[in-house]
């Protein structure tokens, strides 16, 4: 009896439409200058985003990296990484290794989409650009399997002593809004030769 009554109440009443949401015009992002202490690179960064550095790790692996965190969306972060990978670094055997490992589906046959690698120029220097769209879990240990579609874009800039990598990561629903921030950072990016 209880169940029947509850069912009637739950299903027969109007669904919650909620009050109409106000739309707020997006504010243009404010930028400020950023430069690595070791002068490996500089660029303009969004002033409102959180800047993160792991100085102990950078000292250990000799790989300066700036992590920028934007407003989260769909339970996921919006991130920009800017890093310099030296020839003696631990992570990649040169820029081609970086491109190979990030521009192709290493498993094949999955639904992730990888765009072609194209040659381009950044700040008058030769660079490579590619993007990908991948399905990503909210929690990889949860049987619920909740996922979010992630859009990523990469710039790779070869240099005499290694290479620079700029990496944009955002949920698809927020990618369009934040991609211009990444492009501005890329356009103002200056790395040592």
């Amino acid at each position, binding site marked *: 009896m209880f169940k029947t009554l509850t069912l009637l109440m*739950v299903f027969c009443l109007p669904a919650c439409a909620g009050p109409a949401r106000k739309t707020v015009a997006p504010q243009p992002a404010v930028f400020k200058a950023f430069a690595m202490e070791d002068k490996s690179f500089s660029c303009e960064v969004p002033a409102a985003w959180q800047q993160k550095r792991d100085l102990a790790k950078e000292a250990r692996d000799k790989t300066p990296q700036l992590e920028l965190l934007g407003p989260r969306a769909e339970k996921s972060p919006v991130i920009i990484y800017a890093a310099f990978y030296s020839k003696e670094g631990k992570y990649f055997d040169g820029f081609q290794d970086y491109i190979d490992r990030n521009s192709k589906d290493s*498993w094949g*046959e999955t639904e992730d989409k990888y765009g072609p690698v194209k040659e381009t120029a950044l700040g008058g220097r030769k660079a490579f650009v590619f993007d990908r769209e991948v399905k990503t879990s909210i929690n990889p240990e949860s049987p619920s399997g909740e996922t979010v579609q992630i859009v990523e874009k990469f710039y790779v800039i070869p240099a005499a002593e290694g290479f620079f990598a700029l990496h944009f*990561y955002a949920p698809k629903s927020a990618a369009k809004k934040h991609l211009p921030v990444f492009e501005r950072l890329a356009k103002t990016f200056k790395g040592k030769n």
Partner: protein
Amino acid sequence: MKRINLITFLLSLALAGSAAAQGLTPQETSRLAAFEAGLSSANPVAARALGTDKELMDKLTLLEPERAAALRAKAAALADFERQLDKEWSSDQTRNLSASLALRLTREGPLARMGLAPQPEKVRAWAARYKTYSSEKTLLIGKAVKDWDVIFAGFSFNPKMQNSGGTSYLTGWTVKTSTGAYFLEIGRSDLIFRNTAAEMKTFWLDLTLKERNDYLGSKAAGLLSGVFIDGSTRTDATFQRFVSGFPAFEYLDASGKGRLDRYVSQMQAAEEVKAKLSASQLAGLKTQTVEQQMLQLGSLFDKSEAKTGVVAERTLDANRPSRPDETLSAQNNDLITGMLRSSLVNEVKGSAPGDKVAAFYAANKLELAIESCQGCHAKYEPSTGRIVIDSELVQQYLRANNISPDALVKDKDAMAGLTKYVSPIFVHEATHQMQHKWAADAGIYKPYTQEDEIEALSMEALHTTQKKASDPRFRSIFLTMGKSSSYAQQRVEVSKRFEGNQKEFGDFVRQQYYYGVPSFEAASSEVLTAVSAELERRRGLGAAEIGEIESYGKSLSEVRQMSAREIADSALDIKSAALRKIQADLLNGSVYTRHYAGAEDWALSMRKAAAKKSGVPAV
């Protein structure tokens, strides 16, 4: 370089020691008083200023170590709280913010000692005083702390009356949203039930955020199970949208949200298959709940009455519940557990992490169990020393591959397939067991942190990557199961992310996968705050009270099994020696950070070594 650092450090200690011998100057005493006054009202400016006054804090550490530790810990807890609140939280992140705040806004926690808890509304007052958040963010915080006036804004409380013997009784309240939609029912036996809405609100104000979340979460979970999963027969797209947007489900906890997601997935899978069935086949499903429909649709496949394709069948089989003949009996469970215990250790060999795990179990006993994991694929239980594999994970694999438990125990090849399938999560959980063993051997307390998961996921990912390259069947199983099983998809996804960039992997794991888990820095500061404050409090206690704690309080061995949150919440009931040991452990944070850094470097070197050995790029 190291020697120069050491000399500089010793010199600074000597200088501080020399200054300390003279006690605090009047100016320092005044600054210290300002810090203490500021922190007692949770002033973030005071916390930041304290962080920069290294000279004073070094001196205080030598003069009054517990007072210094308590101050540092308070400042760290406040900084952590401020960071949490400052983050950009989107509206769909309210549940995460709420869970994160619930961990911190406890009755006995460090924030309570600064007047920021337990009443969750204090967060809004604090934000109004010290922050300039937008109106959207202020509203989101109100929702996250379950402020009565925010979550029930515009809602109506409709009395439910019952007549008995001519007398009318109030039996409950039906709560409706501002648009008149059903929200939930507050029954007489409910914790918050009172005769008026105003009385309920008064009671609500005294609940902690965890209690509020638990109440709303359990009400929403009751509706999900009773009314929808076990009470409804609809699976159509309109109904799926109705369920997904049902107002009360906003308050489901993580496991309830998991059930909701699974329910919606089941409806989607059922709809996909039902679109291809005949009218007579559909007629038999009309009065059945979704789980019953999934079982019946599974039977249709088994009898080859439906021609809907292999992928659809796998999806259906993976999502439906097990039939009685597919459920693990106690006898089969024992047999399969025993077989997996030996086959898993052999299977993982050959990958760098697997060899490490196998070496660990050569010297330590592996206790394995197949049980319901309650919202996880597997877990390591420190209290029992067992690794529990989720029974549903095993049954799902068997269903999707048309293997019955009876057949599995007689079929070595099928068992080999299951072993390969389970091996990545086994490596993950074995890493957690090794972390606990490391802490036990080092004689230190280890809180559960993001760093633990970064190490475990790195081990798992490296194992998956190396097995994928060396074992075609392993690769094939994950690609095939990946089309219908979230477990397989997740393992592939994690390995791809790890292969792509190990430099970013740890940061990515913190931000994407384990955002709600505290970092080592946050967890240790929470424990240090609570422990230091409690040791300070005990200085003023009488012998009888101290004697009672020392007689009946929790011992160090019990405390070592507790999470950071549990210690912070129950510091009052822990023996002083245990508190001092935990404090000493965590104040020496470099022991932990060196361990985590070592684990990261090891995974990196193993991936590179394997890539060079194979002579092909690491991809």
